[in-house]
């Protein structure tokens, strides 16, 4: 681990509801350099909220606290809204789950990508367009000119997710948070999109936080894995050492993975125990 | 403490709060009451909705006890001593009109006419819309196509103008006004009932009833219609305000209730001549219309939010 990009210490995200407060994230800590970190957990484990809290995209009524939430020397909890916006899209990008919903349906793809660029950099119209086309090419879109003027509904899911990646990487951020970026895609397309993501992250030397429910995918793609359960990190380990996982929950997740050629009867059921959530 | 001879479910006192909110109701009766209680809790948490309910309850009470409440005769005035008295004159809280009639008494008696119109329109239009909508939605095919085309034609009509033309042909009068408003009110109900019917037309429980040999008639009337009721009630309540306003508009144009009936819209029309100097003659009935239709709107909003929390958000 070279320089430290992001330091998270004791991050908590609390939602007030009518029946009392709900802590979605309860004391998550980790540091991240220019590496790939996977965050795995079942739905409701707080993995997505962790990513969103770093971006400052938690709903307004929620409460975020942390001992440290530091990105490249800046305290993310103390900076103004303006500084926050300057970081978003420019220094931290975020890819959301389903391009069907995360792209604005009434704007052309080209305009949406250009919008990111021109929010953060003063560039001429022609340069903006040229860079957008180059970016579309970088996410391996064969006919960038055509895709540039299409609307999101006119492209496939895989293509849409590439557009989303292009939109978030055009300003060259140092960190990318990918929130279940392939869960909404067909299995065959998943690998393509992951390949593109992999290549770009490697080429540009970015840090990556890869949020997913798919332990196998994360372990094959990331350097390190955080396993979350009920708002807490229950285990942190290098992907290579996954088989040595200590925590019963992680072992349970691993056991759920089917192995080709073996008979799985009865199907294993994930064991959840109340004391893990404490 | 001696245990009661018959234990209900998980030892809850019948009709207590916990009994109503029980996750495992032991009887249909308990489940139904529990659901009603949950809806009531959501409804009563909304202060504006409660205010709306209060206004409507008050309106009904005033209409029932009009004879007792009204201090003066609503039709016969004191032409000699009490013409166009200002509000607050002794004995005339809201003043008097050009014929020496107490405005408050007229408003109190007018509440009966307002309720009459609203209830009658609802009784005529809602069942018509419900039947057309459920039949259309359940039958599908050309029946649906024809019925919905007719509905759309009526929906395409501007309501007030159609009502005006109808009353013009039928002749002025409160019964004809009711009829005209009812004719213009049913199409949205048919649309709602049809949409609701479509959502569960192919559901398992309808198939089950069908397998048991129920006739289409029975399915529509016994199984489909009750399920459409809650959204229909919300819509009807929300429409009440519009009905009151249309009725008042017809009355104002002299096409609704005829003098000397104390209809609020007609009262505004007769007060129009004195609006510059005796503003209260026209202002008071208008305020009554505003309050009552506001009450229906608040009640309708509250009902919608309570019955359909998805829509309400928060």
């Amino acid at each position, binding site marked *: 681990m070279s320089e430290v990009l992001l330091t998270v210490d004791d991050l908590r995200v609390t939602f007030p509801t009518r029946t009392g407060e709900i802590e979605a994230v309860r004391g998550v800590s980790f540091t991240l350099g220019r590496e790939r970190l996977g965050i795995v957990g079942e739905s409701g484990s707080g993995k997505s909220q962790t990513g969103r809290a770093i*971006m400052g*995209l938690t709903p307004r009524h929620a409460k975020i606290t942390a001992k440290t939430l530091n990105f490249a020397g800046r305290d993310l909890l103390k900076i103004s809204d303006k500084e926050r*916006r*300057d*970081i*978003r*899209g*420019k220094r931290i990008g*975020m890819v*959301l789950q389903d391009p069907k*919903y*995360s792209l*604005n*349906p*009434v*704007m052309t793809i080209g305009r949406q990508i250009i*919008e*990111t660029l021109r*929010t953060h950099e003063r560039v001429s119209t022609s340069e903006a367009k040229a860079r957008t086309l180059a970016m579309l090419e970088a996410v391996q879109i064969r006919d960038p000119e055509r895709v540039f003027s299409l*609307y999101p*509904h006119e492209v496939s899911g895989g293509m849409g997710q590439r557009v*989303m990646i292009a939109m*978030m990487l055009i300003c060259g951020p140092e960190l990318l948070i990918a929130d279940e970026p392939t869960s909404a895609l067909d299995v065959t397309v998943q690998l393509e999109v992951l390949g593109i993501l992999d290549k770009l992250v490697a080429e540009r030397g970015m840090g990556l936080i890869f949020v997913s429910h798919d332990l196998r995918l994360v372990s094959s793609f990331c350097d390190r894995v955080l396993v979350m359960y009920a708002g807490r990190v229950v285990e942190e380990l290098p992907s290579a050492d996954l088989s040595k996982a200590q925590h019963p929950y992680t072992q349970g997740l691993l056991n759920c993975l089917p192995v080709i050629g073996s008979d799985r009867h009865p199907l294993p059921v994930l064991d959840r125990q109340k004391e893990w959530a404490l | 403490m001696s245990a009661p001879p018959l234990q209900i479910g998980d030892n809850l006192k019948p009709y207590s709060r916990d009994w109503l909110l029980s996750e495992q109701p032991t009887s249909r009766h308990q489940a139904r009451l529990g659901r009603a209680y949950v809806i009531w809790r959501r409804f009563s948490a909304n202060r504006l909705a409660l205010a709306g309910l209060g206004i409507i309850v008050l309106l009904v009470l005033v209409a029932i006890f009009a004879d007792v409440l009204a201090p003066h005769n609503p039709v016969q005035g004191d032409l000699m001593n009490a013409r166009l008295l200002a509000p607050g004159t002794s004995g005339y809280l809201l003043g008097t009109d050009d014929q020496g009639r107490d405005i408050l008494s007229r408003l109190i008696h007018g509440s009966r006419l307002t309720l009459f119109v609203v209830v009658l329109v609802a009784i005529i239009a809602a069942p018509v819309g419900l039947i057309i909508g459920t039949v259309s939605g359940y039958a599908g095919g050309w029946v649906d196509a024809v019925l919905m*085309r*007719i509905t*759309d*034609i*009526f929906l*395409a*009509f*501007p*309501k*007030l*103008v*159609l009502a*005006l*033309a*109808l009353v*013009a*042909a039928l002749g002025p009068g409160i019964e004809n006004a009711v009829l005209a408003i009812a004719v213009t009110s049913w199409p949205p109900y048919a649309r709602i009932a049809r949409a609701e019917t479509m959502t569960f037309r192919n559901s398992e429980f309808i198939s089950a009833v069908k397998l048991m040999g129920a006739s289409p008639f029975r399915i529509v009337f016994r199984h489909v219609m009750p399920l459409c009721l809650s959204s229909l009630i919300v819509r009807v309540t929300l429409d009440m*305000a519009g009905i009151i306003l249309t009725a*008042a*508009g017809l009355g*104002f*144009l*002299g096409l609704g209730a005829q003098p000397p009936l104390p209809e609020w819209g007609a009262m*505004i029309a007769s007060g*129009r001549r004195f*609006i*510059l100097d005796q*503003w209260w003659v*026209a*202002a008071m*009935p*208008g305020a009554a*219309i*505003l309050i009552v*239709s*506001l009450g229906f709107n608040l009640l309708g909003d509250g009902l919608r939010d309570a019955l359909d929390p998805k829509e309400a958000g*928060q």
Partner: protein
Amino acid sequence: MTLTDTTAVTRRTRRRASSFGMAVVRFVVTVVTTFLGLLAVTFFIGRVVPIDPALAIVGDRAPAHVVERVREELGLNLPLYQQFWIYIKQALSGDFGTSVLTTNPVMADIARVFPATIELATIGTIIGALIGVPLGVLAAVKRGSFADQIVRVIGLIGYSVPIFWLGLLALVLFYAKLNWVAYPGRIDIVYEYTFTPVTGFYLLDAIWQAQWDVALDLFRHIILPGGLLGYFSLAYISRMTRSFMLNELQQEYVVAARAKGLSETRIIWFHALRNAAVPLVTVIALSYAGLLEGSVLTETIFSWPGLGLYITNSLQNADMNAVLGGTIVIGAVFITINILSDLLYRTLDPRTKSR
């Protein structure tokens, strides 16, 4: 290879063409049946509901020979379906009979008064949209706040108040007491003879002819009824805008736009509102159509010489031809606006365009 390719393409094109053709056919059928339905309903009201339609048209004070002539003109001795056929033919050629009150053809009367109504409804809609949309956006963004409550109350009162009553009170306050606006009517009597309107839309004419004093006078006449209709349209538009915006602000693309580093202002007014605008166009069109109807009562209060006043005057004089003619025209405009808003919706939403 190429052969199969081309056949596939032609097949696809043909299928697309036929589905497009089907859509057009369906559209035409809808429009035609709706207009036929409109005529059928007015025919029913005019010929079937009254005991003696001829009497209903000329009024019961008319001399016997007039009644007889009208009965013959209407073909009341013919079977009903033939009468309807004649009625449709006449309506399509713009013949709604003669007004008993003005003795002009009803169509000529309507052509004369309708621009005044259009002018009033347009002003009302402009006011309603210009204020209602921002209010709705504000309420959605600051949901649950004091501002949201205020917008809600403004809307609720707009839904609940009798328009003619509010108009009367406004006249008392702004004309009689404060003298800020002109008396009921459309134009001051002084200008009635010096000003020659060309299009029937007086405000536009006055501005076009650079007659500023006339324009000011017209403005002082239209502002109160126009503002009143604007309030009604505002109540509806702000409420719908709020609900559309709440829906849009929950969408994932808003999160994505924030992740891009856009300002809230841009996200709200550009991204979310642009999406909400798609259904909003329909709402604004519907409110415009609603104002044409609302003008009936408003024009009566403000002596505004438009179609609404024409209809109520005719009602008062039992002039059935004029009433039904006015009903048909308002109904037809209503339907047309509905159709246009539907078409506009399609052009605004890229998703409804086929590739």
